[in-house]
């Protein structure tokens, strides 16, 4: 078990390091922030001067080594655009993204899993058709559209919810719905497939033969067995929700990591982008490790194998 954990950790570090290097190289090859910072009428000399002041005129490997040197003692550098430590900029946005991801996850799991159970056990009924329609809609409507439709209906027309903002619970509702909709569909489909799979197995038939109702078989036995793939998806979805909130955060003026990422990429604010990439890779790795342990909790068979 310990050896397994250590191996996973080393793999994770290599993966994060690789991602970091690729992002560093790609961002630096496609230009630096100097041109975006100067006023339009700046002369070539002025631009060259600022570039050298900011250190972007040095060979890329020098900049890379310097960056790694800083990282080794947790110095993430100072943003050239905002002139504030890059880590502080990203860290201040983290609570917002965590809040939105949690809200979206509540929507996704709270609606997705019940929908999956119903569509798996009530096949052919009107309820299944209705829920399938909702699931497909949730999956196929892009968030920039669903976001604006939500704002128009609940914000502008009905005036039930604030059109934008981030201060209170009311302003969390619409972004969570918009962001959660796609994951909701993933959960619903995954749950459905997984349950249908289990329903075909012998223990279900045996239980039914003993006279147990379908509901009781599903709730007491099937759900637990069907949970493994759903947990895997949940782990991946948490990473996706963090990284994929770019559009939702922009539409709802939600000041999270996604919005920050897009702005920082546009302004070539390298160091901020790097911290975000590091953070998202870290969350991916962390959630998949946690998922591994949760498997073991849920399913004794996995514990035995190890």
């Amino acid at each position: 078990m310990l050896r397994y954990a250590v191996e996973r950790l080393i793999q994770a570090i290599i993966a994060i390091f690789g991602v970091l290097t690729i992002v560093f190289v790609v961002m630096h090859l496609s230009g630096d922030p100097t041109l975006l910072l100067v006023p339009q009428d700046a002369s070539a000399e002025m631009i060259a001067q600022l570039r050298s002041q900011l250190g972007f005129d040095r060979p890329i490997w020098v900049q890379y080594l310097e960056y790694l040197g800083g990282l080794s003692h947790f110095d993430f550098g100072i943003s050239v655009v905002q002139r504030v430590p890059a880590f502080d900029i990203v860290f201040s946005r983290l609570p917002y993204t965590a809040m939105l991801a949690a809200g979206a996850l509540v929507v996704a799991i709270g609606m997705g899993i019940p929908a999956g159970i119903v569509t798996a056990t009530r096949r052919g009924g009107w309820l299944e058709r209705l829920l399938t329609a909702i699931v497909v809609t949730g999956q196929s409507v892009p968030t920039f559209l669903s976001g604006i439709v939500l704002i128009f209906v609940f914000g502008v027309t009905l005036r039930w919810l604030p059109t934008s903002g981030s201060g209170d619970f009311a302003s969390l509702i619409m972004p969570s719905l918009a962001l959660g909709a796609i994951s909701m569909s993933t959960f619903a489909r995954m749950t459905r497939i997984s349950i249908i799979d289990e329903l075909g197995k012998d223990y279900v038939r045996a239980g039914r033969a003993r006279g147990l109702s379908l509901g009781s078989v599903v709730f007491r036995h099937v759900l637990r067995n069907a949970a493994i793939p759903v947990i895997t998806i949940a782990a991946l979805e948490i990473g996706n929700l963090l990284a994929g909130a770019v559009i939702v955060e922009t539409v709802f003026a939600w000041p999270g990591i996604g919005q920050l990422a897009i702005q920082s990429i546009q302004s070539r604010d390298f160091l901020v982008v790097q911290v975000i990439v590091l953070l998202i890779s870290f969350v991916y790795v962390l959630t998949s490790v946690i998922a591994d342990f949760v498997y073991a909790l849920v399913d004794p068979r996995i514990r035995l194998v190890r």
Partner: protein
Amino acid sequence: MSAKFASVAAMLLALTASTALAQTKDTLTIDLPNDAATLDPHLQWNTDSYSIYRNIFDNLLTRDVKGEIVPQIAKSWKYLDDKMIEFQIRDDVTFQDGTKLTAEDVAFSINRIIDPKLKSPQLSQFDQIAKAEAVSPNVVKMTTKSPYPALLAQLVKLSIVPKAYVERVGDQEFNLKPLGSGPYKMANWQKGVQTELEAYGSYWRAKPPFQKVVFRTVPDVSTRIADLKTGKADLVRDVPPDQAESIKNDSNSQVLSVPTERIGYLFINAQGGATKDIRVRQAIAYAIDREALVEALLEGYGKPVEVLGAEPVFGYTDKVKGYEYNLDKAKELVKAAGAEGATVEFLTSPAYSRATVEAIQQMVNEAGLKVEISSSDQATFLKRRQGDPANAGGLAFGAWSCACQDVDGVIFPLFRTGSIWAKYSNPKFDEAVDKARVILDKNERLKLYEQAYQVIKDDVPGLGLYQAYALYGANKKLKWQPTANEAMFVMDMSWQQ
């Protein structure tokens, strides 16, 4: 049941009572597309940053409603010789911590922004200044490297910062907790969310019109407009022309617009590709229907121009006329140049209106050329556009503003030989603009710029298309006249109940 009803009724009553009692508006809320990058006014120079920090700081000089340069922190000024200028500083101005603003602070502000150690992106606007010194508590003497006619226009953008405070807290802390002599002081900056400013009670000009001003960061334009319509915001910046109608249709909202110094223009590469031939460039000029562009794409929020300049910019001339729309002439010229069907690359990025780029493509195609659009991100676009002429594309659309309202900041960087934007060289043009930037005589300068504009017209290394309007969405009760330099001074706003 009835108790419940009574309490709800009481609550509603209290709500209506409180709104009825509010005689003046306490908090003004403004939606901007981006957060300020920095609030240190000597660092970042972009519209969203200065929309906020210009309310915290005063400038050495400013412009009045008509666009004339008028005193602000400087009471008056006079030239000692053509490289030395002396400013009289007001003695009734205090910073928001109560300390007095003196000539020392003004000299410090200038020397700070031109100090390479600050790494200010704005340095290029002030690099003609050699130094500034306080010769008495109320007098600052400034020396320029050469006679520099655009100096006053540039100093309109110089915010005065408190020497003692900046030196005490350091540059980084100053950026997070800025302190100036302006009408509003910083209350709370939630990065990426909003910036709250509070009225500075002892402001020297007058009492600020609102007790509080909140600048919110709302990147999506549909959301900004929804905020305006629901009353969550009182003023929103950066409204595209095609959204103006939906604001007008709302009974509580209005569109505020003003012609700016910003010029929509078409760059035509005179040093590479098919456009190297002057006849092809002239053909493109004949093929573009500027009126149609303004009508169809800007919904009238713009004005076709004859040259690459407009009235708010010093040096603008109405004596040089542009090319009229004449498709037959355009086709003839393309044929004469033997360039029928030649491919012309049109560089662009998402920062520029795709509709405009495609409309221009269509118009130029009709003259017999084959325009291919290549779109990349802004950083890559700039790298190519400012790089080697052979790789800079044949055409590019842009919106130019030097925020200095002087032609020296427009056609000099765009077309002077050796400038990063210029893919063009003509000694006649260079001579005129070089001379015009080192003499102080206004009439002489105007004459030189007229010559320069004539050369540009003949050679067509670029083409003025229209003067852009700044569009804002505002609550109907907000009274405000936006200005040509796209500043957002809350001091100039008021609320009508």
